[in-house]
C-alpha cells in the first residue's frame, strides 16, 4: 500500500505552502494558461527566454499542494536551461510521475523534481503534477487557448499538451 508520506514529502508541503517564483513576471515574453477542468486547478505561467535559453519562470494560480509544489519546483528547475533541455526534462518528469521511468531511457537528471515520484502511486493525482509542465509547453509555443490535463487522467496515456517532441 502506498504511504501518504511518499506523496506528501516535506519538500512538497513546503513548496505547496510557500511556492517560489510566485506572481507575475512583468518582462515575460511567453505566457500561457493551464486549467484542470476536473478539479478546477488554474495556473498562469510567465516565461522569459533569450536566445532559446529560459532566464526566468513565474506562475500564479490556485491549486492543490501537488500542483502548486510541482509548478514551484518546475520554475526553479528551468532557469538557465535551453528550451530543448526543458522539454527533455518534462519527458523525464512525465515518465517519473506516471511510473514509466524505465521507458524514458537516460534523460537529464531530475534533481529536486524526484520528490514527486510518489505521485506514480496515486494515478488520480498525475494531472495535478503535470499541469504546470503542459502549460510550459503551451507557453513556449505561444499557444493562447488554455491547456488542460484531461488526458493525463488515465494512467499510461500520452500527455495532452501540444508540441511534445518525444513520446507525444
Amino acid at each position, binding site marked *: 500500500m502506498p504511504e*501518504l508520506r511518499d506523496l506528501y514529502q516535506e519538500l512538497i508541503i513546503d513548496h505547496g505552502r510557500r511556492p517560489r517564483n510566485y506572481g507575475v513576471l512583468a518582462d515575460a515574453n511567453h505566457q500561457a494558461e493551464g486549467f484542470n477542468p476536473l*478539479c*478546477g*486547478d488554474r495556473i498562469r505561467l510567465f516565461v522569459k527566454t533569450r536566445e532559446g535559453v529560459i532566464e526566468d519562470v513565474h506562475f500564479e494560480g490556485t491549486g*492543490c*499542494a501537488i500542483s502548486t509544489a510541482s509548478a514551484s519546483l518546475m520554475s526553479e528547475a528551468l532557469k538557465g536551461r535551453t528550451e530543448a533541455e526543458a522539454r527533455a526534462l518534462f519527458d523525464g518528469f512525465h515518465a517519473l510521475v506516471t511510473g514509466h521511468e524505465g521507458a524514458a531511457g537516460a534523460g537529464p537528471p531530475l534533481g529536486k523534481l524526484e520528490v514527486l515520484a510518489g505521485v506514480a502511486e496515486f494515478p488520480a*493525482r498525475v494531472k495535478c503534477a503535470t499541469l504546470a509542465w503542459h502549460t510550459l509547453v503551451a507557453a513556449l509555443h505561444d499557444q493562447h487557448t488554455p491547456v488542460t490535463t484531461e488526458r493525463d487522467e488515465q494512467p499510461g496515456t500520452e500527455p495532452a499538451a501540444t508540441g511534445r517532441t518525444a513520446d507525444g
Partner: protein
Amino acid sequence: MRDDPKERAALGRAAGTGPAGDIVRRRADFPILARTVNDRPLVYLDNGATSQKPQCVIDVETHYYEHLNANVHRGVHRLSQEATDAYEGARDTAREFLNAVQREEIVFVRGTTEAINLVANSFGARFRAGDEVLITGMEHHSNIVPWQLACERSGAVLKVVPVDDRGELDIEAFGTLLSPRTRIVALTHVSNALGTINPVRELIARAHARGVPVLLDGAQAVPHVAIDVQALDCDFYAFSGHKLYGPTGTGVLYGRRALLEAMPPWQGGGDMIRQVSFAHTTYNDLPYKFEAGTPNIAGAIALAEAMRYVREVGFDAIAAHEHALLRDATERAQAFPGLRLIGTAREKAAILSFVLEDVHAHDVGSILDHEGVAVRTGHHCAMPLMERFGVAATVRASFALYNTHEDVAALFAALEKVPEVFGDA
C-alpha cells in the same frame, strides 16, 4: 432455482423494515460494502455521485440476461414478448414510484442529463428570440448547458436566480425574474453540491400563476424523499437510476401528457415511428415517440427493482436515518478546527460540503482515500456555484441509506490525518 430474484425479493419483504433502527440491517444487502480499500473497510460517502447497488438489483439485471434477453416491441416470439412485458412493467413501477397519472408520461432515458437535454431540445424547439429560460445559481452543469445550447439556437435568454450565503434560493428574485417572456423554469429539487432542498412546491405554484411550466432536476432528490409529481404539480421531473441504487445508464423523464404530446420528437430512429416513407414519417404514440432505438431494457427492469427496494425500505425510515447521519456529521464538522461548511440551508438532504483552511480539497480527498474513505472532491459540476462561494473545490460527503454513524466517525477520524500530513504551521 435457489437464486431466483423474485424469491429473494419476497424474502427481503418478509424480513420487513419497520422503524428506522432496522435500516442498519439493510447494509448487508449491498455486496460491495464488504470490500476493502488500502486494507481498510470501504467507507463509501460518494453517494451523490452514484450509489451502490443492492443484491436484488444486481440479480434482476443478471436474471434478465440469463432468461429474458430479447429486443422489445418487435418480435412475435416468446422471449421478445416476455422482455417487452418486463420492460413495460418497469414503466408501470416508475409511474407508481412518481405517482404520475398515466404510464404514457414515463419516458425511459439514459439519465438526468439526457432527460433535460430531451426537454431543452424538444420543448425548447419553440423558443424564439427574446424568450427567457429561468434557472438557478445552484444548478448542475447538466441543467445549465442544455439550456444555454437551446438559447444559442433560438436567441432566447438565460436568467439565473441568485443563491444566498446559506445556499438557499433568493425567492424574491425568483418572483422578479419570472417575466411574461419566461418559457420554462428549470431548477434542481435538491442541490448536488450543497444539499439544499428547494421549496419547489411554492416555486412551482408561483411559476404556474404566470403560466410557466417547471422542470425539476430530481437527480439528488429521488434517493432521499418520496416524489409525488401530482402533489408537486411539476410539469417535468428528471432523474437518474444510478443514484437511486439502480444501474448506470438508466433514468426517467416524467412529463405532463399534454406537454409531451405537443412536443416534437427529439431523436429519430426505430421504435419512435408509426409509419416511415421517404416522403413522410408519422410518429409513434407516447411514450415511444421519445424512445428512439433499442432502450436499456435490462437497466430499466433493474431500475424498477431498485424503486421497489427503496419503497420497501421506506422513505420515512430513509429520511429519518439520513437526517440523523447529517446531524451527526454537521455537529462534528462544526467542531473541527479550520473546517468551513459550504451550504448551510435550513432544509438539507444528506450532503455535507466543506473546505479546510489552507489545505486544498484534492489533498484532503487523497488523504481520506488513503484511509478507505471515498468522498467527492472538486467543483461537483457546479462551477458557477463554486464561484459564488469563492472556492475552487470542496470536499463532499454524501450519505445513503446504508451508511452508519461509524462511517461518519471514520470520515472525521480520517480528517484528523490532514493536519498530521500537512503540519500545523
